[in-house]
């Protein structure tokens, strides 16, 4: 089982992702939330058992790409997979996210199947 963290500045989008996880029947121990990269790093510092991160790209304070960079200073991509969830689905942005250390990419709007396909390889 896995503890999952959703990082998005929109509380609506965080709720939608939680609903989609239920619809996709993705089973996790707990779901934590953060509104930007800084909050995500704080959550990670106090919850060392977080097993996977779903993160938006465009956020205030610290964006998703910066978050990936910071997380990769302490966790490699096998220890803590990060899936980006964003409207910015262009090839350049996708390549940048992967080169920073993201494990996958989901474009909004998404379906339960899309989210499931991105997450299942990393759910323990």
């Amino acid at each position, binding site marked *: 089982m896995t503890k999952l963290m959703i990082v998005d500045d929109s509380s*609506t989008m965080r*709720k*939608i992702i939680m*609903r989609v996880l239920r619809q996709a029947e993705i089973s996790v121990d707990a779901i934590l939330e953060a509104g930007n990269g800084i909050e995500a790093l704080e959550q990670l510092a106090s919850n060392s058992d977080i097993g996977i991160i779903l993160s938006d790209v*465009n956020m205030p304070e610290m964006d998703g790409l910066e978050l990936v960079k910071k997380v990769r200073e302490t966790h490699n991509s096998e220890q803590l997979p990060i899936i980006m969830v964003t409207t910015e689905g262009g090839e350049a942005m996708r390549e940048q996210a992967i080169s920073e250390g993201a494990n996958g990419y989901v474009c*909004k*709007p998404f379906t339960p199947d899309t989210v499931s396909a991105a997450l299942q390889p990393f759910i323990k």
Partner: protein
Amino acid sequence: MNPEDQVDTGAAKALNLTDAELLNILREGAEEVFMMLGAVGELVDENHGAEDHAASQAAALADIAYEVMVEFSGPKDGVVVMRCQESCANNITRGMLSMEECEPVAQSEIHDALGECTNMLGGFFKRQALDPRGSFRLGIPKIAEYVAAESAVVQGSLIYELSDSRASVEVWLDEQAQ
């Protein structure tokens, strides 16, 4: 109006798109977003930016309560706009948050939900219509601001009915970009 019957405008050509292609991209984006909300939107009007657009839209979409726009900038500048009636905004928000019909919806929840909807529409439009034509950036959703209205021209609009209330999805281009 059937998109295939329309005459291509110089406006849509500013993005090297035919009017039919532009409307198809808008339609696909709107329908993907509605599907994600668990809603079914019935298309009741579409327009490719003809001169009588304002009159046509006013007749099909009265009592607009919310207008949300996401700006795009790059080789061409413009906005993707979503406008909706009060009850439609409530329905969209309840759908996005999985709320019961009787639950009250807070203004902040409506703003966040409509902002995310428009953000997704803008993202879809960017991927499908803009990215193949250059390097573009999307802005942050803005609620109830007509920032581009005086200098922009409607390129295409679709009006949907969701549970007896209506919303429009539109693309505007800065007229200097045409």
